[in-house]
């Protein structure tokens, strides 16, 4: 929906509609009751006067409603309710209330999101975090942006931009589960990775070998890629940033790209390819310098 609807206007229109209905039902109620004892001797006259007054009310309310309705913008297209439209086709009695529940839980998550963003900006002022963050983010709080609920087009743009900046890393997007992107990364002839997104937030990473098939839930049969997967999860959490999601994705991809020399570059600390006990190549990359280290050597 491009056109934002003025909620206040809509609300006042609904209120005047309600008032109109009320006054109309008042008319019918009075008519149905007919002459009452309190109308007294000249009951007929008084009754007609009362009715006239009520009808004038109806007229006033109707004019009010017409006025507010003309002030409303005309929607350009029918409202798109997304998948929730299908709920109206539900035939089971006890499930017909689902729409209200859905709206409630949507409001609830939206509120959680809002609160957690505030909490995030408050917490980032205190240097409780181990990682490098810029405390300047508090200044650009402004309008809170939803990061778990962005349009697929926006996600595509962010990911395609990253894809274009690497020659040896191919990123392809697919959407096997509704609107959320599952991104496949082919890093040279070294490894393959698959990242599941929720909006612009990364939720899951799996790294497997070049000669293995890509699967989201099955671990690699090679020790080294199981180790890289483990470290990729750590990186995903490290770069996690709900206020700047695009930066988080970009940083993660830069970090993952540094695995292009997984087998060819020795450890920066001990100078060896293989660690003497684990017999693994340096499967850790420093978050800042991207230098290779063995897990055992990174401290």
């Amino acid at each position, binding site marked *: 929906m491009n056109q934002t609807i003025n909620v206040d206007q809509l609300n006042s229109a609904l209120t005047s509609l309600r008032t109109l209905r009320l006054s109309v039902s008042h008319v019918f109620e009075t008519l149905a009751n007919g002459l009452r004892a309190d109308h007294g001797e000249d009951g007929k006259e008084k009754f007609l006067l009362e009715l006239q007054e009520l009808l004038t009310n109806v007229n006033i309310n109707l004019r009010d409603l017409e006025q507010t309705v003309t002030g409303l913008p005309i929607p350009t297209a029918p409202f798109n309710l997304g998948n929730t439209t299908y709920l109206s086709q539900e035939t089971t009695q006890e499930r017909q209330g689902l729409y209200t529940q859905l709206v409630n839980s949507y409001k609830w998550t939206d509120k959680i999101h809002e609160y957690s963003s505030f909490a995030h900006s408050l917490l980032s002022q205190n240097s409780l975090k181990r990682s490098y963050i810029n405390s300047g983010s508090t200044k650009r709080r402004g309008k809170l942006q939803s990061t778990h609920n962005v349009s697929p087009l926006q996600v595509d743009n962010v990911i395609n931009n990253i894809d274009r900046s690497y020659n040896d890393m191919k990123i392809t997007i697919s959407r096997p589960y509704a609107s959320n992107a599952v991104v496949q990364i082919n890093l040279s002839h*070294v490894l393959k990775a698959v990242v599941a997104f929720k909006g612009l937030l990364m939720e899951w990473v799996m790294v497997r*070998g*070049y000669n293995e098939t890509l699967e989201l839930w099955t671990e690699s049969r090679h020790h080294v890629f199981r180790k890289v997967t483990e470290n990729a999860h750590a990186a995903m959490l490290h770069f996690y940033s709900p206020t700047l999601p695009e930066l988080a994705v970009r940083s993660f991809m830069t970090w993952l790209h540094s695995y292009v020399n997984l087998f*060819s570059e020795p450890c920066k600390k001990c100078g060896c*390819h293989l660690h003497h006990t*684990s017999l693994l190549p340096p499967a850790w990359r420093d978050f800042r310098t991207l230098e290779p280290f063995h897990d055992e050597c990174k401290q």
Partner: protein
Amino acid sequence: MGVTVLQQYPVPEHKTGTYVIELLTKRILALGATQQGQFLVDCESYLSLPQMGSTKTVHILHNSEQPASVFSILESGTKNIHVIADGLFDLLMMKLSQHYTSKKQTKIESKGPRFELGDFCVKFGSVTMNQNFKGILIEVEYRPCVMANAVWGLLREFLQGLLGPSITVQPPQHLLSRMNEIYAPIDTIYQYLEHFSAYRKVTGLRSA
């Protein structure tokens, strides 16, 4: 399959091949390897008969790692042509006995224990030709990596760690031109053929 390197291991004077393989087995088990069965690579060579013009050689090889395949390499002048077929190819060679004769006395094989150590697969092969012991070939495969160029330093480090620093580790002749290609099972076969051909030229017997 990952990049594989085949390395000759010297058998000292007055020592037998069995003794050396036992020694290597103890060493790799101490590093934490587990033995996963045995392996066998064999090679039989056929010569074309004179009526076919210039003599050509066909080498037929089997590798227990790819049990359903038969590898054949045709040597014709400067170029080698290989074909990977299924088990029926052996029967086809028998049918071709009119044109190709087997050099039975040069049938050669490498066999021995097979180990897994982390992402490495290590095989200690004792090479015999016509029941005569010829030497020891060590095969090391690093399974996660498919490109020889990227993994060469790592493989050298592993081989020298396992066999001792005195062993010189050079990229095999066959791999030199294929360092940036994706490694395939036939590349292992070519390496075995290189070593088998060298062993065939060496005369003199060793005690197994």
